[in-house]
C-alpha cells in the first residue's frame, strides 16, 4: 500500500521531470522536440531515477549491516571512493568507456567500504563510524582532486565540481545505461536479501541460528553496494544525503524493519533525486547548479536532526 503510493508519486514526478519545462516543445518543430525528449530529457530522467533508487537501496542495506542508521554511501566514504576510482580509471589507466569507468567506480567504492568495515564494523559507536567515514571521504576527495589536477587534459580539473557534487545534465543514453544496468542488477540482489536484513535486527547470532550467514551477508552487501554506487558515481559524480535520508524515512514508515524498508527506500531515494533535479532547473540561465548542492542543502539540516535524535548506545 505505502509502496504502491510511493511508486505512483514517483512515476508522476518522473513524468514531470521528463516533460517540464513544456514551453521548449512549443518553440521548436516536431523533429527537434522529439530529439530533446528522447536524447536529452529521457536519459536524464532515467539516470535520476536509477541513481536515486540505488542510493536509497544501498543506503538501507549498508545501515542494516552496519547496524547503524548513519551508514550510507556518502557517510561511509563509498561515494567519494567511487569518484576516485572512476577518475583513476579515466585519467590514470586511460579507459574512458562508460563500463570501464563504472568498474573503476565499483573498485573505489568497494575499497572505501572495506576500509570502513575494518575500522568501524557492525555495531560500532556511531561517532567512530562518522569519523572514519569522514576521513575516508576527505582522503578520497583530495586524491580525486590530485588526479584531476595532474591529468593530461588541462580541462579535467574543471570537472572537479561535477565529480564531488554530482550532476545529471548532458548524459548520453550509453552513460545512463552504464549506470542503470549494474545498479539495477545489484539493487535487485540486495532486495532479495530483505528477509535476512530483518532477521539480523534480532542480532547476528539469532539470525545465524536461522541459517543466515552474517559475515557472508555483510560481504555480499558491500560488494553489491560498491557495484551500484560505483556505476552511478562514474556517470554522475558523488551525490550526498539521499542515501542517508531515504532509508531513514522508509524505515520509519515500515515500523523500523531494516529489510522491509529496502524497496520503499529505493522509491523515496528516486523521488528525492528526481525532485532535486527538477529544482536545479530554476537556476539562472547559464549558471548550472550541481544537483548535489540541492541534496546537501536540504539533507544537512535533516542529518543534524537525526544526530540529535540518536540516543547514546545502550550496552547490554
Amino acid at each position, binding site marked *: 500500500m505505502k509502496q504502491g503510493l510511493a511508486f505512483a508519486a514517483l512515476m508522476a514526478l518522473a513524468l514531470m521531470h521528463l516533460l517540464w519545462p513544456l514551453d521548449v516543445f512549443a518553440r521548436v518543430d516536431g523533429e527537434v522536440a522529439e530529439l530533446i525528449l528522447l536524447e536529452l530529457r529521457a536519459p536524464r530522467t532515467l539516470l535520476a531515477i536509477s541513481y536515486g533508487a540505488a542510493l536509497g537501496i544501498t543506503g538501507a542495506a549498508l545501515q542494516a549491516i552496519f*547496524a547503524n542508521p548513519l551508514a550510507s554511501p556518502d557517510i561511509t566514504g563509498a561515494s567519494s571512493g567511487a569518484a576516485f576510482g572512476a577518475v583513476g580509471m579515466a585519467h590514470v589507466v586511460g579507459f574512458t568507456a562508460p563500463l570501464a569507468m563504472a568498474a573503476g567506480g565499483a573498485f573505489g567504492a568497494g575499497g572505501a567500504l572495506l576500509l570502513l568495515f575494518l575500522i568501524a564494523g557492525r*555495531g560500532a559507536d556511531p561517532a567512530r563510524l562518522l569519523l572514519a567515514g569522514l576521513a575516508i571521504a576527505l582522503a578520497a576527495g583530495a586524491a580525486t582532486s590530485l588526479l584531476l589536477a595532474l591529468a593530461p587534459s588541462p580541462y579535467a580539473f574543471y570537472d572537479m565540481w561535477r565529480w564531488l557534487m554530482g550532476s545529471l545534465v548532458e548524459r548520453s543514453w550509453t552513460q545512463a545505461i552504464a549506470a542503470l544496468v549494474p545498479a539495477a542488477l545489484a539493487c535487485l540482489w540486495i532486495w532479495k536479501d530483505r*528477509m535476512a536484513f*530483518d*532477521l539480523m*535486527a*534480532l*542480532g547476528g*547470532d*539469532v539470525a*545465524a*541460528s*536461522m*541459517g*543466515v550467514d552474517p559475515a557472508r551477508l555483510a560481504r555480499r552487501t558491500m560488494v553489491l553496494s560498491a557495484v551500484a554506487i560505483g556505476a552511478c558515481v562514474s556517470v554522475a559524480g558523488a551525490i550526498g544525503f539521499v542515501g542517508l535520508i531515504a532509508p531513514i524515512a522508509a*524505515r520509519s514508515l515500515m*515500523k*523500523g*524493519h*531494516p529489510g522491509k524498508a529496502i524497496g520503499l527506500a529505493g522509491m523515496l531515494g528516486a523521488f528525492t533525486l528526481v525532485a532535486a533535479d527538477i529544482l536545479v532547473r530554476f537556476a539562472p540561465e547559464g549558471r548550472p547548479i550541481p544537483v548535489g548542492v540541492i541534496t546537501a542543502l536540504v539533507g544537512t539540516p535533516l542529518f543534524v536532526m537525526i544526530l540529535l535524535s540518536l*540516543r547514546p548506545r*545502550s550496552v*547490554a
Partner: protein
Amino acid sequence: MRIEARALRMAGRLSPSDFAAGEGELIGLVGPNGSGKTSFLRGLAGITGEADRLCIDGEPLCSLPPAARAHRIAYLPASRLLEWPIPVSRVLRLSPSPVEEDSVERMVAHLELEPLLDRPSNALSTGERGRVLLGRALALEPSVLLLDEPLANLDPYWVLKVTDLLEDAAAGGTTIIAALHDLALVGRFGRLLLMREGQIIADGKSEKVANEPLFAATFRLHGAAPSWTL
C-alpha cells in the same frame, strides 16, 4: 534423539564434544566464566564451529532451509541487543516463516508483554528485551531451545516465572538447554552438564552431578549443594 552432536568443536574454545538429548529434556549448562558454555550453545545452534554430525530430529541442521530451521531450533543470545525500533508486537512475529498467532498470544500473556507491544524494542531495558526475545523463541514452538543465560538481568519474580515457563515448555516436548550462573536453580533442571576449559566434564541427573566433589571443585567451592562455602 531430538538433538545429536558428534565431535562438536571450535578451535581454542570447545574441544570435540559429543552430546545427545531426547524429547522434553530440561538441561542446565553450568561452568565457571569462560568454560565454553556460550561456545557450546552457539555450536549446537549451528552459528559457528564444526561437527562431524549435527542433527535435529535426525536431519542435519545445515540441510534445513531457514523457514524450517526457525521452528526446529531457537536461540536466545546472552547479549539482548535489538538495534532497530521495531515494535515488540512485530519482533515476536519476526521469523522466516509464519508464527502461530495462538502461541504468540500465549507468550504475551505468560510473559506479561501486553504493555510493551507497541513500544520500540530498542528502547526497552535489558530485562524487558530478554523477555521479548525469550517470548519470540518460545512462540516459534521449536523442537530445541538453546538459551544463553535466560535468567540473567531478571527480577526474582521473573526468574521464578521464566523457570516455570521452561518447565511447561519441556513438559510439552521441547528440549531445552540453558546456560545458568545461579547454582541455586540447578535443582529445577532435570539434567546437568558441567563444563570446564572448553570440555564437558560431567553429564547426568542434576542432583547427582551437583553433589559430586568435582562439581564444587570446578567452581572452587567447598561443601555440597545447596550450602557451598568458599
